[in-house]
């Protein structure tokens, strides 16, 4: 793997109370590439993804062990400011969750949290983010409309624009297209390919074709363990593990 590494996990374990959800995971996610997490549902993909911006901190009985590094910083260091971490590691959810505010205010939200008030700066950033999320052409003349008036696919792109407006280093996408129709899915996939020019992208998907289409690297998780991690072409052509092959060929899952 020639590319520099953005995210590293070392002996990463996570427990919900007493049940182990993630077991001793070691992975190195390269910078400015798309990495896909695949695996049967309930295997811990979302849990793992949410570790990278510490969303699991919100759940009461979670305990973790091991290390996760963003470049050379330990993100679970007690001195880390979670707000800053979450701004550099953005997360997009399965179901689009725009705020019940205007389109403009949705995208500007992260900036306002950072205390930015300059109007032209806000406008410029919002425009830039919406253009990068391939949404500008559809909404530029109704930025003040309520975001809930957008279609599902547009909402999901809006949420992506909202995440990139704060200029993160990493974008985490948790099954971003599973609630969308095929056409919207296609648009999001195009967007992902475009995003990797500037960001490190990690995407969870249960759709093999999607993983094959958009990702450079693929990790296969099973029952909380990392079974195999490699370049996507290799995983899909010559999987090393029997379980991976079975899953990809649809023999279980």
């Amino acid at each position, binding site marked *: 793997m020639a590319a520099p590494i953005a995210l590293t996990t070392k002996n990463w374990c996570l427990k919900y109370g007493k049940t182990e959800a993630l077991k001793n995971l070691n992975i190195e996610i390269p910078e400015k590439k798309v990495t896909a997490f695949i695996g049967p549902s309930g295997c811990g993909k979302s849990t793992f993804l949410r570790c990278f911006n510490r969303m699991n901190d919100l759940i009461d009985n979670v305990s973790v062990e091991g290390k996760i590094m963003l470049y050379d910083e330990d993100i679970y260091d007690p001195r880390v400011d979670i707000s*800053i971490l979450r701004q550099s590691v953005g997360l997009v*959810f399965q*179901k689009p969750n*725009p705020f*019940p505010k205007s389109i403009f205010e949705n995208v500007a939200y992260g900036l*306002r949290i950072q205390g930015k008030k300059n109007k032209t700066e806000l406008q410029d950033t919002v425009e830039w983010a919406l253009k990068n999320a391939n949404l500008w052409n559809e909404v530029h003349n109704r930025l003040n409309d309520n975001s*809930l008036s957008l279609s599902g696919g547009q909402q999901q792109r809006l949420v992506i624009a*909202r995440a990139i407006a704060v200029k993160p280093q990493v974008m985490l996408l948790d099954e971003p297209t599973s609630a969308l129709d095929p056409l919207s899915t296609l648009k999001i996939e195009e967007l992902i390919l475009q995003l990797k020019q500037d960001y490190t992208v990690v995407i969870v998907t249960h759709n093999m074709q999607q993983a094959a289409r958009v990702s450079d690297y693929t990790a296969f998780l099973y029952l909380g363990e990392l079974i195999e991690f490699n370049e996507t072409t290799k995983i899909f052509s010559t999987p090393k593990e029997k379980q991976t092959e079975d899953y990809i060929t649809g023999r279980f899952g």
Partner: protein
Amino acid sequence: MPSLKQTEQTRSWSQWKKNGEHWVWVNASAVAICLIMVIGLIGLIVVRGLGHFWVNDVQQIQLQNGTLWLGEQIDTEKSITNDAKQKSKTQILYKVGNREEYSLDFKWFDGEQIKNTTKPEWVAVIERYEWGNAYGKITNLHWQGKTYGINEPQALDNALQAVQNIREKIHTIEKNDIGRTNYQLNEIRLERKKIKADNSLNEIQKNKFYAQLYHKEKKISAHYQEIKKELDKHHKKLEEQGYVTFVLSDNKSKQINLGHIVRVYFPNQMDVVDRTLFYFEKLWEFIIEDPREANTEGGIFPAIFGTVALVMLMTLFVTPLGIITAIYLREYTRQGLIVRIIRISVNNLAGVPSIVYGVFGLGFFVYFMGGSIDELFYSFNLPSPTFGSPNMLWASLTLTLLTLPVVIVSTEEGLNRIPRAIREGSLALGSTKFEVLWRIIIPMISPSIMTGIILAIARAAGEVAPLMLVGVVKLAPDLVIDGNAPFIHLDRQFMHLGFHIFDVGFQSPNIEAAQPLVYATAALLIFIILLLNITTIIIRNNLREKYKALE
């Protein structure tokens, strides 16, 4: 193949019941009964209350024994006698006015006593500032030294207009100038007490302050004397305007001073248009004037003002308190046994009888809080209380406690409905918990909060019992807000429509005069509550439109 059409049997009662149609009918009748009761209640209040301002004809009643009376017919009653042979007797209630003559405005006549009734055109009704209405015949007018006969009605109009102008001047002076100077003099009195009680000042300093105050007081007193002179001049002028000579039904002649007359009208000469105009004039007067004659005449403006001010102040207190409490309970505490107990207690508070809140308000707010404030900040004024007596502030705080549960419960319900995804979405962008609450959640739950406020207003505006202990009075000449700095005087007592109904209806010696006023005040109270509620509902619907939650 069986037929799809209904057979005779499937249309039967049992089939009907199986479809649940009888429940539909039960529900519909329940709704109908509720509607009939509500409409009946409001209809009764509105008809009786607003009918009061309509001008009725004045009848001349001739009795069998030859005596004559003038009066408005108010009511008829059939008294049932036990004696089967005797016909049931009718009794008729007339408003005969002229209270200073007959000691009562109202009189019952036996139907059999009355020989006949007529409606003579010449009957005049004179509304007076004291002693109520006078019914009779105007014979002539003495105005500014000249005498006018009844064939010069224009003269009467002019005279009354002149009187009205003088009255307005007097009113302005009394309300504004006298009120202000009294207020200033009182402030100086308090200031003097304050200096006297201030131990950090030595005698020389004190004397210096006293001298300053004395100087100030002298100036204001001098000004006061001037105003007083001016006022006396107007009063004298008013008295000297003249009088009308007036013949009562029993041919007794009287002089009524022009200065005591509110208005004069000739009901039997009025057509529908006149009466309608007159009706709105009276209604308007009822809304904007101060009460007269132990609250049985004039208007109820101070009570309207007090009610609205009380409700608004209560809203101002209860909204932030309720929101903060609900947010703390729902978002910041661990959802354990203690929170459950607190929540149950809050819900049960809504069921505590309101008079209990009144007792609590009197004990805690008035005596304890008010007493402490007086001791700490107004000790110079003791033993006379400043905040240690019932007033607007304590009344609105008592109502705040009373309505707090509904606001808390509605806010919590709103918080429960916020989808998890929205909170996470905001947190994932790096906002803190407080920012999520402030920027996303509170705007989103604002419609629920408004629902709580609507319920709170509806409950608070109708409460009377607790207010009687913590601040309401039957007559409060000074409003809570006026032109004297600091403009808002929460240490004052106030009037309230609900209490006014009780006071006029049940504490007044003049029952017949009071009854329609009870209905009119009730109608107004309902109308004001409706207005307050509609306003908040409109605000809520706008907010709902704005923050349509994710589905």
